[in-house]
């Protein structure tokens, strides 16, 4: 599979992107980013999956013609997406995510747009080292599939130290409506403590 064949140049995305985005000012700002991201994916005819709470806040803002079938847009709560067993497991998380992507692709979709608000990680006091290890591994996994992954971080919940970890674990950065290359990104194997 050549991921580049599934690029969406006009959006600035590249297949296999693992992008972080930051927001502040409450869930409305986050929903704005999600609505924009999902609308782009649906308009491209792709499958979209959202790990967010209060899905109606997004779904109600999506034009009906972009949702010809229910299965094109899937909502999963943050806990179901990140803590399906009630706690965070890096391996289970990555495995589930990969299986979901494969399943979508087997359903005939060419691409998968996956967006998740990771606030639950801070709220549930998930070990940050484990979490960012998972984020780093996701950056390694993402390029293998025609998928776009965007992780949303609330600047009211994550301090500067965490932000620096986010930047180290995401090769691309969604900023002010653009996706740019993150110069501070550190590949997983170069991170301190990596195997």
């Amino acid at each position, binding site marked *: 599979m050549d991921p580049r064949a599934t690029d969406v140049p006009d959006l600035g995305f590249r297949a*296999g992107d693992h992008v972080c985005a*930051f*927001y*502040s*000012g409450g869930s409305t700002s986050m929903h704005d980013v999600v609505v924009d991201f999902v609308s782009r994916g649906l308009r491209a005819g792709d499958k979209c999956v959202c790990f967010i709470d209060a899905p109606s806040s997004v779904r109600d803002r999506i034009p009906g013609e972009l949702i010809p079938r229910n299965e094109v847009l899937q909502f999963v709560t943050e806990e179901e997406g990140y803590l399906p067993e009630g706690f965070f497991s890096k391996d289970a998380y990555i495995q589930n995510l990969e299986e979901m992507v494969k399943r979508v692709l087997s359903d005939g979709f060419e691409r998968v747009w996956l967006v998740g608000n990771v606030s639950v990680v801070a709220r549930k006091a998930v070990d940050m080292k484990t979490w960012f290890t998972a984020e780093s591994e996701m*950056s*390694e996994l993402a*390029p293998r599939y025609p998928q776009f992954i965007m992780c949303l971080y609330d*600047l*009211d919940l994550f*301090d*500067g*130290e*965490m*932000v*620096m*970890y986010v*930047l180290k674990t995401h*090769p*691309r*950065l969604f*900023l*002010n409506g653009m996706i*740019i*290359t*993150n*110069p*501070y*990104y*550190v*590949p997983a*194997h*170069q991170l301190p403590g990596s195997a």
Partner: protein
Amino acid sequence: MTPTARGASGASELEPAVTARLSSVNAVFTLSLILTQASSPAQAMRLVITAIPSIAPCEKALAWHPRRSGDYYQRAPADVSDALARVTAPGRLASRDWSSWSAFPLTSPLADEPVCLMVESGDLSDEDTFLLSVLAQLCGTVIAKLELIAAERSAAQRVAALNAELQSTISTLTKIMEVHHRLNEIAPTAGEMGIAATLHQLTGCGVVIQDASGYPRATAGRVPDDYLAAQRTDRRTELIGRLRTARRAIYDDPAWLALANPRVDVLGVIALIDPARTATDTDLAALEYAATVLSLELARLQSLAEAELRSRAARERDIAQARAAELAASEARQRAILEAALDAVISIDGRGRMTYVNSAFEHIFGYRADEVLGRELAEIVVPPALRGAHRQGFARYLTTGQARILDQRIEMTAMRADGSDFPAEVTITRTGPPAEPVFTGFVRDITQRQRAEQELKASRARLVTASDAARQRVTRDLHDGAQQRLVTALINLQLADQKWESAPQRAKQFLGLALRDTQRGIDDLREIAAGIHPAILTQRGLAAAIDALAAQLPIPVQTEVRDRRLPAPVEASVYFFCSEALTNVVKHARATSAWVRVELEGSQCAVEVRDDGIGGAQPRSETSGLNGLRDRVGALSGTMDIISPAGGGTVLQARIPLP
């Protein structure tokens, strides 16, 4: 090439120290990008100071200001504030106790005591110092931008709030203008009902307009029946007192109330029925303006009513005054007429009691008014023999309405105060309302008139008798006198004619006798004619005629007659008055002398015939000579008096008005 491949290959080619420094530079650069996502200075500063340990080797990072604290920085400890205030460039604090702290101004050191990013650390390399300086400057820039944005946002919010407030105000004003427009338009044409209906349309609430006493004057919309019930006076007074004090609409369950004319006289109250208290400010503004319009409308109506009342009162007063004056004048005229009337005027009520008499009544009947007012008419003026019939007739009229004597002139007998009767002509008319009849009678004493009428009848009879006697006398005189003479003359003429041929001398004697008898016959005719109308009176006047008359009498008669011609009827009456009087003197008075005097006195001719005879003359019968003289004088509206004491001579005086 993927980022992962690029990052991996770059790191492998660089020295670890360079790689670490490059990573720090990347960290500062990337963090500066993230800072643009911050929503507030505090958030930006929190990100920076918590990220610094990831960028440079340090123990702690803070944000200080030497003199004060803010939402993203703290006030520096007192023992370091002076040193912090003297910071002019990034670097270690010049204070022994704070020598492990470095200060990185967020803005230019030239600025007045800027906020500093404080980092506690061991020795910092030049590169770290540079990166932290850059980070502080970037943080300062971001915070400045955020503050600017916040200020702009605040300004925008203020503007938006002002716009919203302005819009709300405009909307309210628009609604109020509509309220004013509609109420102003409806009030002059539809009055209170229009105001109530319009307020109901504007607010959707039921509306009641009450007067000051609480009685409903107009309603619109749904109004509870019990709200229209009369309110206790003390409760009403207390409520109006509250409205006066409030000077705006107040709520008195279940309605909002506003006072019409709250500062002067309370003209009314307007109620907006609102049991759920859902009325908006606009509704209450409409209520208060409706109260104002109601005030004007009620004041206008009151003014009109007062003006109408004043006008009507003035008109009625004028009319009443005019009527009173007219009535007074009429009564005065009527009373003056009645008082001046020669007839007695008597008014009685429905019970026959006397209510008014005039002066003539007092004169004719001999009563004073105060003696008779209130007493029954019948016992005062009706002779006892007639009272029963009078009372029966009066009662019959009152019972049946059938009147025999009303509104017609009748003659009846009336009774004076002294009980004497007299003939009266009475006219009775009815006045007054049907339920309170008033009868007014006009009574005229006709004693003199009846007497005059009787005298007139007698005079006419005497004139006829005298005329017949005169005609008989003339007939007799002609037969016994002139006729005999003329017959004798005729016979002598026939004898003369027979002897004319045979005995001319005898015939001549017969002619002489015929001439004598003819002359005597002519004398007799002249004498008879003189008794009818003397020729001398016509030819020479009254003085010559009376002188000739006196010359024929056997006693001396002295005359004193003005030699002046008078109207022929007057001269004839005076002549025959004197002739008859002198004849009576010769026949009856046994007088030795007589006097005749005729003079003009004013517009009358005064005649006096006097003798020195035996006196005691008086009319012996209707056909006596004296009555004949009175009739002759009376025929010319004259009067005659007789003065004839026994033994004292007789004087007849007559006064004949000149035409």
